C-alpha cells in the first residue's frame, strides 16, 4: 500500500494509455530507428567511427532525439489533459498533488528512456564500444529526467508549453550554447554530455561543463521542476464562464 502513496498506478495507467494509444505515439517510432539505423550503416560502411560518430550520436542522438522525445512526451503527459479539460477528473480526488505529479513524471521519464536513452546506448555500442553506449545511455537518462521535470512544470506554467519548450531547445540550447559558452552552464544537453563523457571516456563525446556542476544542476532542475509543478497543480484554476 505504501507504493501507492508515491506513485499512483491508476494515474500512470491512464496517462500511458493517453500518450501511447493515439497517433501521436507513432511519432516516437522513427527517431530511435533512425538513430540505430544510421549507426548500423556507419559501421557497415567500414569508415572509422571518429568520422561519422559525432554526427550521429551527438548531432542526431543527444541533440535532437533526446530533447524532442522528452518534449513531446513531457508536455503531453499533463498538458494534453489540461488542454482537453480531463484533468478535472484527476483533480477532484482527495489525492495529494505530489502523487499526481510524480505519477506523470514517472510516465514521461519511463517513455523517454526506451525511446531515446536505450537506442542511444545501442547506437553507441554499435558505433564504438559498450562503454560508449553505457555512457551515452547514462547521460541520456539523467538528461531525460531533467527534461521531463522541466517540461511537465512548463505545461503547468504556461498554456503553450510546446512553444516555450521549442524556444528553449532551439534558441537556448542549440543556438546560444553554440555561440555563447556561458549558456552552456545552464543547458541540460550539456549535462547529459558531461555525464556521458565521464563514463564513456571516448573522444566522440566532448563536454565543457564540469561533472559536479552537471550533477548538481541536473538535480536542481529535476527537483526544482518537480516542486514547481506540484505547487502549480495545487493552485490549478479553471476559468469561469465559457472559456
Amino acid at each position, binding site marked *: 500500500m505504501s507504493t501507492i502513496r508515491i506513485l499512483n498506478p491508476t494515474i500512470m495507467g491512464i496517462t500511458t494509455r493517453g500518450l501511447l494509444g493515439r497517433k501521436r505515439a507513432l511519432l516516437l517510432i522513427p527517431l530511435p530507428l*533512425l538513430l540505430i539505423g544510421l549507426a548500423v550503416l556507419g559501421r557497415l560502411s567500414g569508415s572509422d567511427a571518429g568520422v*561519422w560518430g559525432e554526427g550521429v550520436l551527438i548531432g*542526431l542522438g543527444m541533440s535532437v532525439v533526446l530533447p*524532442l522525445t522528452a518534449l513531446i512526451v513531457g508536455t503531453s503527459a499533463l498538458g494534453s489533459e489540461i488542454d482537453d479539460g480531463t484533468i478535472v477528473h484527476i483533480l477532484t480526488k482527495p489525492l495529494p498533488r505530489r502523487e499526481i505529479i510524480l505519477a506523470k513524471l514517472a510516465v514521461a521519464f519511463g517513455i523517454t528512456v526506451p525511446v531515446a536513452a536505450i537506442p542511444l546506448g545501442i547506437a553507441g555500442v554499435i558505433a564504438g564500444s559498450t562503454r560508449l553506449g553505457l555512457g551515452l545511455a547514462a547521460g541520456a537518462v539523467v538528461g531525460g529526467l531533467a527534461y521531463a521535470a522541466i517540461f511537465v512544470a512548463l505545461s503547468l506554467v504556461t498554456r503553450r508549453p*510546446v*512553444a516555450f519548450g*521549442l524556444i528553449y531547445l532551439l534558441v537556448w540550447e542549440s543556438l546560444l550554447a553554440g555561440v555563447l559558452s556561458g549558456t552552456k552552464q545552464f543547458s541540460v544537453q550539456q549535462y547529459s554530455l558531461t555525464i556521458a563523457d565521464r563514463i564513456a571516456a571516448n573522444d566522440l563525446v566532448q563536454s565543457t561543463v564540469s561533472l559536479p556542476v552537471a550533477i548538481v544542476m541536473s538535480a536542481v532542475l529535476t527537483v526544482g521542476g518537480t516542486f514547481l509543478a506540484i505547487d502549480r497543480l495545487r493552485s490549478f484554476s479553471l476559468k469561469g464562464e465559457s472559456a
Partner: protein
Amino acid sequence: MARHETTPAAPTSVIHDIGYQRYEGTRLGRAHAVRALYASSLRSAFGLGRSAKAKFLPFGILGLLSLIGAVFALVRQLTGEGGGPTYYLGIPSNVGLLLIIFLAVVAPEMVSRDLGNKTLPLYFSRPIRRSDYALAKLAALITAVFAVLAAPLVIMFLGAALQSGIGLDGLWDEWREFSLGVFNAAFYAVLLSALSLLVACATGRRAFAAGGIVAVFLVSTPVASAGMEIGTGNARDLAGLASPFSLLGGVQEWVFDEGIEVGHFGPLYGLVALLLVAGCAGLFIQRYRKVTA
C-alpha cells in the same frame, strides 16, 4: 415594429419594412475571393490585424535578417572584401535556423488555426474551391518567406550599389549576382513553404505543428551530414538528398555552381526538389478534399 399613423397633418400612412433585406448588389466571384484569402493569409503571417505579440516573431525575424544583410553590406564597404557569387547565394543557407523558426511559427498560424477552430466549413461553403484555399495559403507562405529572405539581399545590393566608384560595369555585375541570389531565395521559399505547410496541416494545434516542422528539419539535418561523413563517392554526393537544406544546397550547386558538393548528381537534386515540391503541394491540397465539419 410597424406603426400605422394617421394624424391630420401627416400626408401619407406607411408601414416600413425594416426586416431582413436581401443583398442585391454585385457579387465579386471566385477570383476575388481567392485573392482576398491570399492577402489575408499574408497579413496574418506577419501578425497584421492581430495583437502586438503576434507581430513580434515574424517582424523580429525580418528585422534580424535585415540586420544581417546590413552587417554584410557594412563589412563589405569597410573591408572591400566579399561580393561575388557566394555573397548573395549564401544567405539562405546561413540563416537556416532563423528560417526554421519563422516557418515553425508562421505555417501553423496559417493552416492549423483554421483546422483547430473547425472554421473550414465556413470557407468551403463559399465560392472558393478546396484547391483554391490550399493554393492561396501556399502562395501566401511562399511570399512571406521570400520577403523575409529578399530583405537582406536588397539591403546588401543597395549597400554595394551605393558604393562610390563602382561604375556601370560593377553595378551590372552586382545586379546579376543579386538577381541570382533572388532566384535562389525563391527556390528556398517554395520548397520550404510546401514542406512546412504539409507538416502543419496534419494537426489543428499550432504547438504540435510547430514542433513537427522543427522536428523535420532538426532530424533530417544530422542525418544528411552523417550520410555525408559515412558515405564515400557517389553515396556521399547523394547524402544531401536527405535534408531540405542540403537538397537546396545541391540545387544551388547545379543551377548556380555555388552550393554543396554533389558530383554529377546536380540534375538529380533538381528533379528531387521539384518532385518534393509537387508532392508536398499535392498532398497538401489533397488534405483539404476530405474535410468534414
